[in-house]
């Protein structure tokens, strides 16, 4: 589904290379995890895939079901079915959560040539999904992420994911800033979305989240490359011994 080949990326503003040849393929229905030390390029990878400005792709490709991702706008990537759950969801005063979500959903539908959802159906869908994420009506009415706690922001990301029903979900350190209960809630939300035609790329520092969201494949990223790939046991090894041994072994 998601195929990344030899991806090289540098910052636009300064002459600094962040990704130095990333190769990665996530197949339909799979959950992949990317772990790695700070500064290894994990978040950059997620931003480049989603289309954030400020990065320059100097080599390589990234495709979603064969369609080139890197040459199109963020909204077009979303319409193709790509979704990034932000590490730091943005607060947007003055724009209501519901207005935003409905605008986003209908824009995606329109881009795919589908019919727009009407207000009543939309409300029903959102309420139902919000309930399972313990998001109350009051939160839905507020401006996007304004006044939300860290946990509420992350749950709101998962709600957006549940409503937009993307096929390729990237979760960028969704566990950061969450207590155990909140993490469980978020993980349950993600697990509920697991499906045979949907794939996940979970970026995390810790094994903890992977206890809840069981990955099929684990990658270790360091200095802008995937340096090791394995099964769930790789995450356990990181948890026990840190990255030092693995990095030494591949050096």
């Amino acid at each position: 589904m998601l195929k990344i080949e030899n991806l090289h990326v540098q910052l636009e503003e300064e002459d600094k290379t962040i990704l130095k040849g990333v190769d990665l393929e996530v197949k339909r229905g799979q959950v992949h995890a990317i772990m790695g030390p700070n500064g290894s390029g994990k978040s950059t990878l997620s931003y480049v895939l989603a289309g954030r400005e400020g990065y320059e792709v100097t080599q390589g490709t990234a495709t979603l079901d064969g369609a080139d991702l890197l040459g199109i706008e963020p909204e077009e990537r979303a319409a193709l079915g790509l979704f990034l759950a932000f590490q730091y969801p943005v607060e947007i005063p003055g724009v209501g959560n519901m207005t935003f979500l409905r605008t986003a959903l209908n824009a995606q539908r329109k881009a795919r040539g589908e019919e727009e959802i009407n207000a009543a159906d939309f409300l029903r869908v959102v309420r139902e999904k919000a309930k399972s994420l313990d998001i109350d009506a009051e939160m839905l009415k507020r401006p996007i992420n304004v006044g939300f706690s860290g946990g509420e922001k992350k749950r709101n990301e998962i709600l957006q994911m549940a409503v937009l029903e993307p096929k390729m979900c990237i979760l960028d350190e969704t566990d950061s800033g969450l207590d155990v209960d909140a993490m469980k809630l978020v993980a349950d939300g993600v697990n509920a979305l697991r499906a045979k035609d949907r794939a996940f790329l979970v970026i995390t520092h810790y094994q903890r989240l992977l206890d809840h969201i069981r990955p099929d494949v684990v990658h270790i990223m360091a200095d802008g490359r995937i340096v090791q790939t394995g099964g769930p046991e790789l995450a356990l090894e990181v948890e026990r011994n840190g990255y030092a041994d693995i990095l030494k072994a591949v050096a």
Partner: protein
Amino acid sequence: MAVPAQKFDLAAEILTALPAPAGEAGWASAARGAAAKRFAAMGAPHRRDEYWKYTDPARLLASQAPVAARISTDETPTFAESEQLRLVFVDGVFDPERSDALALEGCEIQPLAEALRTDIHWARDIFGVLEARSQDAVHRPLAALNTAHATEGFAIRVTGRVKKPVSFIYERRSDAADAFLHHVIRLEAGADLTVIEAGPAASRLSSVMEIDIADGAGFHHVRTQGRDHERLAYTAMFSRLGEKSTFKSFTLTANGRLTRNEQIVEFAGAEAVAHVAGACLGDGDFHHDDTVFITHGAPDCESRQVYKKVLRNGAVGVFQGKILVHSIAQRTDGYQISQGLLLDEDSQFLTKPELEIYADDVKCSHGATCGAVDEEALFYLTSRGVPRGEATDLLVLAFVDEAVAEIEDEELAADVRDQLAGWVARHRT
């Protein structure tokens, strides 16, 4: 020629061209004469005057009103859906044929000209009086000129809580015309009135509203200034607030080559509340100036100024907001925010907050910001599938909404939001 002489020569010239009307009551003629004298003494405003530094008044003073094409739209005029007493003006002249009868429970409504011909009239204590009081602090020659000359407008005395708004609807038929409007409004103790103004009035407008609000009374004002691109406007609202009274005013300005909206608020009684707000949208040849002067002359009053300007393609926004707190005005609560959202690098927002405080126990905060659309927010919205244009619209509307939220009446606020959304969609990149 030196600037000062030019100012006075021009003032004299203008007064000759705009004589005071004949046949008015003695008190009215006296008020006209005093206003003409004030204008002559102050001289015509000039770019070198401190309060006209950012806005050149030359086009407001030119001998001819400019040609301004009337915008043709198939939209329902603003606020047309809500229940109201409709008073229609065409090119600044009241049209009784197309207006409702001047009858509204809790309120006496009379054309200004009629009031000024009446020997004993309540308007005597307000007409030109509130305007003149404000001249000590800052010269407002264009308001004095309006008092000296304007005959169109209404004198409204409110004695009760009026259920539906009085709506001034300003239509245009001529491509080039001057309009001078002057409304005088008196709210007796405990009375309450909402006034709506909608439309551009003329290719060049001078409008003054004097509002005297007695103890415990409330005055609400919502205005949209039309969408004609080439029109010019100078407006000034003078309000005097009694104890525990309320004054709230909101203005939406979309388009217009030159607009100067002044708000002059005086707290005369304790525990009164005044909120003035404005949102403006300008694209291209657009210059919009909000000039506010709030005088806290009584203790425990609350004033709030919320001004938002969205500017693109070289549009210019100006804000001059002053809070003067006299030593008697202890426990004043003053808030002021002025913000410009620049949609490109060609536009300008010039803002000048001024605080002059003589009381020692006050809470006054002010903020002025100027910036572009937040790229982080834009990426967040587009990453969810909202196209960049629509995402920008959402952020622009969110930006102005703090000002729109000052409108208490939800129906009127919704109408303003529709206007904003329409403009923003039409002017998308």
